[in-house]
C-alpha cells in the first residue's frame, strides 16, 4: 500500500518498488550467507576450512561426507537418522491424532466445564517446559524408560502440545456448522461426524500440525539430551553434538557435512510443504 501509485498510473518506472526489491535482495543475501557458507564448507578440503577466505572450495572434497556417513562412536549415520525418524514420525502421529480429538471436543461439542477447560488448555501454552521437566524425568526414570524413545513420543499421544490443539480449534471453528447438523440428521453420531466430515475438512490444520511437529521434534535438542545417553539411541542432533566434542578443529569439514545431513530432511520437508506451511501459519499464528 506504500508506493503503488506510480505503477497504477503507468507513469515511468516505479522507483519505490524497485528500491524495495533491491533492499529485500540485499537483506536476503546477508541472511542466506550462513546457509551457503555451511554447504560450501562441507565440501572444503581440510586445509581450506580455516585458512582460506574463499567462500567456495577450490576443489570439491567428498571425503567430508564419507567421514560423516561413518557416524559417531561406531553408530552409522543411517542408524542416527533412523532414530530421529522414529521419534519424529511417532511425535507427528501422536500430535495429529490426540490434538485433533481434543480440538473437536472444544470446537464443536458442548459439555460442562468447556470454558474453564479451554482456558486451562490455553494457559498450558505459556507454561515453560522446565516447570514440568524434572518430575516428568523422575517418573520416566522410575518406569525404566529413560534412554528409550518413549519419553519423547508418549506425551505427544496425550495432546501435551497445547499449541496444536489451539491451532486446530481455530481451524475447526471455521468449518460451517450446517455440515454437522446435516450429518446428525443423516444419523451420524459424533464419532462418525468427526471421522467422516470434520477430520477430512481439517486437513490444512492437520498438515500444519504434522509439519511443525516433525521439524520441531527433529531439531529438538534439550529433551533428547536429557533422555538419551547411549550412542545407539542417539538422534542425529545428539550425534552432531558428540561429534563436536570428540573431534578437533581439523574435523570441521566432516562436522559441517554432518550438519548438512542433519538439516536435509527439514529442507526437503520445507520445499515439499511450504505452501501449506505458510498458509496454515498465517491463518493460525504458529511460530517456527
Amino acid at each position, binding site marked *: 500500500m506504500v508506493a503503488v501509485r506510480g505503477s497504477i498510473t503507468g507513469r515511468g518506472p516505479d522507483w519505490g518498488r524497485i528500491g524495495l526489491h533491491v533492499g529485500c535482495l540485499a537483506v536476503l543475501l546477508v541472511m542466506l550467507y550462513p*546457509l551457503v*557458507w555451511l554447504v560450501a564448507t562441507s565440501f572444503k578440503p581440510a586445509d581450506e576450512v580455516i585458512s582460506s577466505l574463499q567462500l567456495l572450495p577450490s576443489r570439491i572434497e567428498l571425503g567430508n561426507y564419507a567421514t560423516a556417513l561413518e557416524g559417531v562412536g561406531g553408530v552409522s549415520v543411517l542408524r542416527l537418522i533412523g532414530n530421529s525418524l522414529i521419534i519424529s514420525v511417532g511425535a507427528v502421529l501422536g500430535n495429529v491424532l490426540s490434538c485433533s480429538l481434543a480440538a473437536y471436543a472444544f470446537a464443536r461439542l458442548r459439555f460442562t466445564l468447556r470454558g474453564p477447560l479451554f482456558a486451562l488448555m490455553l494457559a498450558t501454552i505459556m507454561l515453560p517446559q522446565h516447570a514440568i521437566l*524434572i518430575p516428568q524425568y523422575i517418573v520416566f526414570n522410575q518406569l525404566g524408560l529413560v534412554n528409550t524413545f518413549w519419553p519423547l513420543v508418549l506425551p505427544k499421544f496425550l495432546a501435551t502440545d497445547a499449541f496444536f490443539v489451539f491451532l486446530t480449534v481455530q481451524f475447526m471453528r471455521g468449518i460451517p456448522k450446517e455440515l454437522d447438523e446435516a450429518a446428525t440428521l443423516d444419523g451420524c453420531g459424533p464419532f462418525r461426524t468427526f471421522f467422516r466430515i470434520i477430520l477430512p475438512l481439517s486437513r490444512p490444520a492437520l498438515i500444519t500440525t504434522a509439519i511443525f511437529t516433525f521439524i520441531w521434534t527433529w531439531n529438538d535438542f534439550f529433551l533428547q539430551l536429557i533422555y538419551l545417553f547411549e550412542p545407539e539411541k542417539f538422534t542425529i542432533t545428539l550425534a*552432531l553434538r558428540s561429534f563436536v566434542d570428540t573431534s578437533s578443529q581439523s574435523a570441521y569439514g566432516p562436522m559441517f557435512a554432518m550438519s548438512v545431513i542433519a538439516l536435509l530432511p527439514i529442507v526437503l520437508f520445507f520445499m515439499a510443504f511450504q505452501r501449506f506451511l505458510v498458509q496454515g501459519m498465517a491463518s493460525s*499464528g504458529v511460530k517456527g
Partner: protein
Amino acid sequence: MNVEAPDQRLSEKPGVERPAGAPKTEGTRRKGKREGAAWVFLSPWLLGAAVLTLTPMLASLYLSFTEYDLFTAPKWVGLDNYVHMFTQDPRYWRSAVNTLVYVLVAVPLQLAFALAAALALNSIGRGKGFYRSAFYAPSLLGASMSIALVWRALFNDGGTVDDLLSSIGVNMGGWVNQPGWALLVVALLTIWQFGAPMVIFLAGLQQVPGELYEAAEVDGAGRLRRFRSVTLPMLSPVLFFNLVLQTIQAFQVFTPAFTVSGGRGGPADSTLFYTLYLYDRGFTASHMGYAAAMAWVLLVVIGIVTALLFRSSRSWVFYNDKG
C-alpha cells in the same frame, strides 16, 4: 490471544463466517450422548494435562523445597533452595541477568525486523511468495544445532565475521570468545529468525481494510501518518500476539546458547542462560530440588511478564471487533 471459549465469537477467517441467520443451538435430543462423546474425545488431553502437566507442576513445587539427587529419597529443606539461589549463588543471578538482557535485546529487534520485512513484502507485488519463503527459511533451520554450529564458526576468531571486521580495521579477535560479545551472537541468531513473526504480521496486514488508507489519504495523511494512524493500530493485536509468544520463547532459549558456548555457558559465564544453568544444576550436578526451584521461579517470572504484557495491552492494543 483471546481467552474466551470457542463459539462466543465468529471465526476470524474471512469468507467462512457463519451466516447471521444460521441456527446456533444443536438439537437437545442428543445432548446427553454428545456430552458423553465430548469426554471421550477429550480423554487423551485430559489424561495428559492431569498426568503430564498439572501433577508434575505440583510435584515440581514440592521438589523445590527438597534436596534430591534421584537416588536417595527427597529430603525436605524448606526454603533453603530459594534462599541459596537468591542470596548465595552469583551464577544464578548471572544466568538470570543474561537471560533478561537477551530477551530485551533479541525480542524487540526480531519483531522490528519482522514488521519491516512484512511491510516491505506487503507492497512489493511480484516476488512476494519467493521473499516470504526465503525470509522464513532461517526460522525453520535456525533452531537446529547445525545452524548454531555455523554461527559459532562464523563469529569465531578467524571466522568470516571476524575477518570482515578486520578488513575494515576493527580487530575483535572473535566474538564468541569475548565475554562482552558472546551474548550478542546468540541474540543475533534469534533476530535472524524473524521470518516466523513476519508471516504473522503479513497475515495481519492483509486484514487491514483498504478503505481506511483511502480515507486517510483523502484526509491528506502522509505515508508516515498513515502508518502511525492506520497500520499500527490495526496491526496491534498481531503485534501483541507476536510479542507474548516471542517473549515466552526467549525466556526458555537453550540450544543456541548451549552450542555457541560449547555447552558450558562460557566465556566467563557470559552465555550462561537460565535454562542452561537449570540443566547444569539438575542434570549435571544432580541437584534436582534446586533445579525445580529454578523452574518455579522461571514459571512465576514468565507468568508475571505475561500478565504485565496483557495489562499494558489494554492501553495500546486496538481490537476492531466487528462481531
